[in-house]
């Protein structure tokens, strides 16, 4: 009989073996790195932290949501999710096992972004804690998109409006576009981007942003519950 940890490890190993030849997914990790390097090299007058802010926001929202949505939609499309449902793995283990590699890869890409943006770990405590929690939120939303989409092709239709909402609204909100700021207040990614802004523009530390962190943690909890509800509904269809 396998343990819960053993089953999560089994899924992590599978994801690691699978991602090596999954170019659709691999290419997504390159985009934020490429874009941050581009901003940094060609627009040097950009405010401090903006190139990094854009890069990590893209990483956390687009990569964090797109990659798991594709992974889960593929499992659904190829009926391999059925096999996992019928195995001893519990839903929580399936989601942790499948999301863990995306999370670890995102953290590796995050470190690369810190280095190429020239930030060299300034405000590291704020950036790390906010990125870790928001990444979890994004991965959970990506998994929801994967479960709701019929197949890999339709993840775009289901997911794109969400990706744009979670990414563009905080960006416009930071530029003080009124409506966007108002909408942004209900989105966790707004608080994520705001934490980066507060750290870089106002020099605030992690203890000044406890409320922001609280909102992010709360969002992760809610997203996880919604994911489990969707999974339970979908598995019985």
């Amino acid at each position, binding site marked *: 009989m396998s343990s819960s940890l*053993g089953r999560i490890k089994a899924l992590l190993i*599978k994801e690691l*073996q*699978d991602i090596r030849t999954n170019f659709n997914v691999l290419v997504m990790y390159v985009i934020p790195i490429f874009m941050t390097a581009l901003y940094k090299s060609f627009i040097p007058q950009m405010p401090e932290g903006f190139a990094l802010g854009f890069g990590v926001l893209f990483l956390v929202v687009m990569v964090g949501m797109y990659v798991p949505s594709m992974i889960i939609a593929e499992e659904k499309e190829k*009926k391999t999710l059925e096999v996992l449902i019928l*195995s*001893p*793995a519990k839903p929580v283990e399936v989601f942790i096992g499948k999301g863990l590699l995306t999370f670890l890869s995102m953290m590796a890409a995050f470190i690369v972004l810190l280095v190429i943006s020239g930030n060299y770990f300034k405000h590291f405590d704020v950036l790390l804690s906010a990125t870790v929690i928001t990444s979890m939120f994004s991965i959970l939303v990506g998994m929801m998109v994967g479960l709701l989409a019929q197949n890999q092709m339709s993840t775009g239709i289901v997911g794109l409006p969400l990706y744009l909402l979670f990414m563009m609204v905080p960006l416009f909100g930071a530029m003080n576009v009124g409506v966007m700021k108002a909408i942004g207040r209900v989105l966790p990614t707004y608080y994520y981007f705001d934490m980066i802004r507060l750290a870089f523009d106002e020099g605030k530390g992690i203890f000044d942003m406890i409320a922001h962190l609280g909102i992010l943690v709360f969002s992760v909890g809610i997203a996880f519950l919604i994911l489990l509800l969707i999974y339970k509904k979908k598995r019985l269809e």
Partner: protein
Amino acid sequence: MIEVRHLKKSYGNKEALKGIDFRVEAGEVFGLLGPNGAGKTTTIKILTGQIQPSSGEARVLGKDAMKQKEEIKLHMGIVPEKANLYERLTVRQNLELFCRLYGCDLGQVDSYLEKVHLMNEKNSPVKKLSKGMKQRVLLIRSMLHQPKLLFLDEPTSGLDPASAEQIHKLLLELNQKGMTILLTSHNMEEVEKLCDRVAFLDEGTIKAMGTIEELKLKYASRKMRVWIEGENGIEEKLMDMDGRESAACMEEWIRQGKLRSIHSCEPTLADIFVKITGREIV
């Protein structure tokens, strides 16, 4: 091993199962036969806890198929109709994933691969395998945790005769070792070869059930076809099994040494299905 009572399942207005009842005993190979859309896959999905019935009861290994599915799934294996393997992973990686999920020995993978002649393909990505090879990988995957009960949904659908034969051989071996098997099929030859008992499922109801011999005798026409040595060579005659006239003819032909062959004209399972439902299994 399996007990189904008044099982019903509706999808919207469409009734996929209209209240079916059957039992499968331990060590038995039980076949659910019927055309596409008869309700075979729905029945398997309910028994394996994948979908909830609208009403009725389904018990597997003495447990409620919905309420106790977590306990049941440790002891059952499933071979679906369509290969649901991880295509980018190799055969070995696919099987090792399931060993890890069930906590069984990784070392047994090679011995199973050897048994189904897939050792040479163990490091090939699944997407490069033929349909027959994939089906054999699915069968191994379903057996890794040594289940007591195996569900097979159209196990040899679309396979070439040689691949189908290999699968049949393996299933019979497993059954001889005590594994209970429930399979769905619309391949009558396969069913005759493998099953101890069968149920004909059509439009969500069981139309007939029994051993293959029982069904054949029940629906036999009581005619026989005989071949005798006639004046112009071998002659074929269709005769009633009952009656003095047939008995007298047979006695005469035997005495004269003219009888060459007798066939009892039992119907095939396909004939029985047509007789019961008025249409072919397709």
